[in-house]
Structure formats: structure tokens, C-alpha cells
């Protein structure tokens, strides 16, 4: 467990330093040193605040999250075009409804990913996450049905739970 925490701390430090390097774009010894120093301070503070864990830095998701993001991006574009068409239609063909969909992820992190994916896709907004279910406001019946088919749920579960069989 301690070793795992160390691994998380180091990877947090590396991520922070990488972002710092890309944002500053100046490669002088003095500034690099100051950057390292500030990253170390942030990691120490985060350690003291006890926020370095699987939720704060989900490195266990690995590359699978990237393939999920690609799939999600395609879904977002499709949903965007659909909602844009509805808004531009002079008859405004919307049919708002509330549905409860099951979030089958065991970890809170998985449920958060699922709820945020639902919200990020235009046409569906998650309103409440409670008791393994998400209350969703959909702008039209087709979108609610898409969601109820559960493909997104399965994919998020595959991304967040297969990691070593251990649940945060």
C-alpha cells in the first residue's frame, strides 16, 4: 500500500512537471529548478491533504481510457448534430423526459465517469447520481432509448473496473 502511494506521488510529480514545462516553454537551469521545487511542494501538500489516491490520480485506467475517449468523441459529435438539427428546426421537435438508468460501475470513480459522459453528450444531462442509478434528463425519446440500451454503461464499466480486479 505504501509502495503504491509512492508510485502515485511520483507520477503526480511527473505529470505536474510535464504540464509546467509545456506551459512555461523556457528551458533555463534557474527556471527549471524553480519548476521542480514548486512541483515538489505541491506533491508534499497533496500528500498532507491525503488526496493522492486512485480517485485523485487514476493512473490505473491506463490506455483504455484513451480508446474510450475516442469512442465518446464520436458519440458526442453525433449527438451534437442531432440536437443542433432540433434547435434549428422551426417546429422545435423536442420531447423532454426523465429516465433512470442503471450505473453498473462498482467504484465511485466509474460512476463519475459515466455521469460526466452522459452530461458531456448533448441531449442527455445527468441530474442526480444515487444508489447505483442516474436520473437523466433527455431532450428527446431517441436519446433516452440510446442510453437505455446501455452501451456507454458497458464501456465505462470495462474501462474502470477491469484494472486488477480491485475496487477502490
Amino acid at each position, binding site marked *: 500500500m505504501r509502495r503504491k502511494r509512492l508510485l502515485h506521488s511520483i507520477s503526480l510529480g511527473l505529470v505536474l512537471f510535464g504540464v509546467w514545462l*509545456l506551459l512555461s516553454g523556457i528551458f533555463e537551469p534557474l527556471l527549471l529548478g524553480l519548476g521542480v521545487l514548486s512541483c515538489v511542494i505541491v506533491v508534499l501538500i497533496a500528500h498532507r491533504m491525503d488526496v493522492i489516491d486512485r480517485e485523485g490520480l487514476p493512473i490505473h485506467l491506463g490506455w483504455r481510457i484513451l480508446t474510450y475517449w475516442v469512442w465518446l468523441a464520436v458519440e458526442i459529435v453525433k449527438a*451534437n448534430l442531432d440536437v443542433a438539427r432540433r434547435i*434549428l428546426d422551426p417546429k422545435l421537435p423536442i420531447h*423532454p423526459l426523465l429516465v433512470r438508468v442503471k450505473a453498473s460501475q462498482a467504484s465511485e470513480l466509474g460512476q463519475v465517469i459515466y*455521469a460526466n*459522459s452522459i*452530461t458531456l453528450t*448533448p*441531449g442527455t*444531462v445527468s441530474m442526480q447520481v444515487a444508489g447505483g442509478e442516474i436520473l437523466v434528463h433527455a431532450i428527446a425519446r431517441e436519446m433516452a432509448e440510446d442510453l437505455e440500451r446501455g452501451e456507454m454503461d458497458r464501456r465505462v464499466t470495462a474501462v474502470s473496473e477491469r484494472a486488477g480486479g480491485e475496487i477502490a
Partner: protein
Amino acid sequence: MEVLRDIASWALLVSGGGFCMIGGLGLLRLPDVYARMHAAGITDTLGAGLILAGLMVQGGLSLVTVKLFLILVFLLFTSPTSTYALANAAHRQGLAPLLGATPLDSAATDHKDETSSKP
């Protein structure tokens, strides 16, 4: 080559601007808060994505592109969180969403909301 890049960037920027305007139009046209969140979602995802992609094409392989990418990443991480917070707050406060096929009298429903929200 330069011309090709300008054309791609132009197309991305203009379509991104168009989606932002559609989002703004939806913000005005749709009947209630929950429905308007979908319109705001269009601006946050495809509108922002296309505009930033257009700028990235202009930036080429440089730190400018990295910064644009970071802006997009921050936007995509924060926007669903704030939308969820908003939807959840409105829901808990007891604001009932307008359900079912909505007729085209959004002005009338707006008016009704206004009178009911002011005790």
C-alpha cells in the same frame, strides 16, 4: 501547403462559430432550464472543440498547440461537472422540468415560470 492549412483552419473556425451560435440560439429558444443545458452543451463540446481545433491547425507543432489542447481538456473536464452541479441544484430545489412534447409557445411558458417563481 499554406493555402491548404488556411482552408482547413477556416472551415473548422467557421463551423465552430456556427455551432456556438446554434448553442446560443438554443439557449434562447428552448423552453426550460434543463432543456437549455443541452444547448449550452453544444457550445461547450463541439463549438469549443472545432474552434480550438481550427486554431491548433494554425499553431502547427508548437507550444501554442499544446496550450490550446490544454484549454480544450480543461473545458471538457469542467463543463460536465458544472452542468451536473447546476442540474442537481435545480432538481433539489424542486424546480420541475417541463416534460412531454412541448408546443411552440416558449414565450408563454417563460411567462408562467416567472410568475410562479416570484411569490
